[in-house]
C-alpha cells in the first residue's frame, strides 16, 4: 500500500470514473485522498493471510425466480423522464473513440 496517491493516479482514476477534474480540483483531491489512505494504512498491521473475505452479511444462496413475464413499464412514462428521446428511444451524443 503506498503512502500517498500521486496526482497522475488521481487523474487516471478520474477518467475511469468519468469525473472531469480541473487542475485545482485534482490537486485538492490528491491531498485529501492521500490523507485518507495514510489513515487507512492501519490495516497493514493486521495479518490477514488466513482470513476469508466476507462479502455477504447473511449467508443466502440459490435465490431465483420462475420464468414468468411481468408487464413492461410504460414507455412514455419512462421517456418523459429521459434527458433526450426520439422515435421511442433514448438519444445520446455520438460515441467517438470507443470500442464496440
Amino acid at each position: 500500500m503506498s503512502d500517498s496517491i500521486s496526482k497522475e493516479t488521481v487523474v487516471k482514476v478520474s477518467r475511469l470514473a468519468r469525473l472531469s477534474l480541473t487542475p485545482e480540483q485534482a490537486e485538492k483531491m490528491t491531498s485529501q485522498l492521500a490523507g485518507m489512505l495514510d489513515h487507512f494504512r492501519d490495516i497493514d498491521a493486521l495479518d490477514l493471510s488466513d482470513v476469508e473475505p466476507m462479502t455477504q452479511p447473511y449467508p443466502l444462496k440459490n435465490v431465483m425466480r420462475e420464468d414468468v413475464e411481468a408487464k413492461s413499464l410504460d414507455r412514455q412514462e419512462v421517456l418523459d423522464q429521459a434527458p433526450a428521446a426520439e422515435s421511442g428511444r433514448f438519444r445520446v451524443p455520438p460515441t467517438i473513440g470507443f470500442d464496440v
Partner: protein
Amino acid sequence: MSDNTTLPNGWQLVVGLEVHVELATKTKMFSASTNRFGDEPNTNIDPVTLGLPGALPVLNKHAVELAMRIGLALNCKVQPCTFHRKNYFYPDLPKAYQITQYDHPLNVDGFLMLPGDVRIGVERAHLEEDTGKSTHFGGSSGRIHGSDYSLLDYNRAGVPLVEIVSRPDIRTSEQARQYVAELRAILLAVGASDAKMEEGSMRCDVNVSVHKAGTPFGTRCEIKNVNSIRSVGRAIDYEARRQVDLIESGGTVRQETRHWDDATGRTETLRTKEDADDYRYFLEPDLVPLVPEQSWIDQVRAALPVLPAARRNALAELCGVDKDGESAFVVVERGQDEYVREVVSCGGDPRRSVIYVQQAFAEQGPTPKVPARDLAALTILERDAKVTSTQAKTLLTDLIEAGGGDVVAMAAKRGFEALDTGALEAMVDAAIAAEPGAWQKYCAGEEKALGALVGAIMKSSKGKADGKAVTAILQSKRTK
C-alpha cells in the same frame, strides 16, 4: 476450404472462439421483462432493465437450467458459482456495469468433438446479461465514427446470455466453422437457444494469432462483427494472412480488437481509447451464490436429448456411412435419423435408406409423409436389382409426391422392370456384335469407347437395363 497449409513459411494458426448465446427464456436474466426479439423499441423494460435507481437483480431459474444444459452437453463440470460486476461506461449498458461471472463460473472444463475426432476444449460457459442496442445516425458510413447521434433501445438489455469460451485448440478456419456449426446444432438440440446468427442470438468473437511450430503462441487479436459461419472462416483466413504479412515485413502484431467488414473482406482496427478499460471486477453484492444441487444437475443431465454427434455416430454405424460424412450430417441436421432407423427396421437396405433420405427428403422435415415401410420396399427393389437406380430415383419422386404407396405396383404401372443378369448378358453380346469397332477400341484400352457401348445398350433396352450392371458386365468381359 482453407487449412493450415495455406499459411506460408511454416506459420501456424491458433484460434479461440468466444460465442455469446441468447437463451430461449420467456423473461430476462435478472428481471421479469419479456425476452423477445423484434418488438417495438423500449417496450420490454422495467427498473432493472433500465438501471433505474433502486433496482435490484433476481436470477432467472430457467436461464440457469438452460445454461446447465449447455454446460453438460459440452461435457463441462457444473459447479457452485458466483456473480461479479464488470464496470465500464457505455450507453447500451444501463447500470454502467454488466453482471457476469468471473472467477467462479457455472460450467468449466468441457470439450466439443469435430469431424475427424478433433477435440476442442471448452474452458467455460458462464452466465451473463446482454446489453441494449444502439443505432447510430449521421456520418458518412453509418458506422460509429463520425456519426451525429445514437439512439438506444433497451429491449435486449438484460436478456440472458451464456458465453462459451473455447480453448485456443482450433488450428484451421475450417475447424472454426465446424466448431460454430456443431455448437449451434447442440444449442438447438438441447433447446437452449434459437442460435440465429443473423438475429444476433448467437454471436462469435474470434481470437486469432500465428506462430511457428515450437515457439510460443503469438499475440492475438480479437475480431468482432463476425455475423455468419462463412464469415468466421473468411475473417480467420484474412486475419491470419494479415498477421503473417505484418510479421514478415518486420512489424509486430498489436494486441487489439478488430472489426470484420464482410463487404470488403478485411479486419480493421477499432479506434481504442487512450486508457485500456480497467473493469474493476468485484463480487456482485446484490446477488447470492448459485450452488446447483447435485439432484438438479443429475435431472438436467438425464433429460438431455441424444446430441447430434451421438446421433450421427449411431446413424453411421447403422447404415455403414462415414460418421463425419455428408449424409450423416445432413440427415441428422434435418432430424430425419429416427425416420431412417424406422425404414431400416422395416427391412430397408441401410445404406440406400440413408442416401435416399439425404438426396430426396430436403423438404420433408423430421416426420416425412412417406411411410417408412414404403421407402424400405423401394430400397429393397433397387438392392435386388428389380429396378435400375435410375428407375428407383423416379419411383422415389413418385413416392414423395403421392405421400407413399405400393412401390411394386407403382413400378409395374410405369412399366419398370430391371432386366436380369441373363438378359443383360445377352444384350451386351448383341451390342458387341453390333459395334465391333467400339468393342475393339475398348479392349485396346480406350475407356471412352465404353460409353458408346453402354449408351447403345441403354437405348435399345428402353431404360430397363441398369447402367451400372451393364458397365460391370462389359468390364468383366474385357478382362476375360
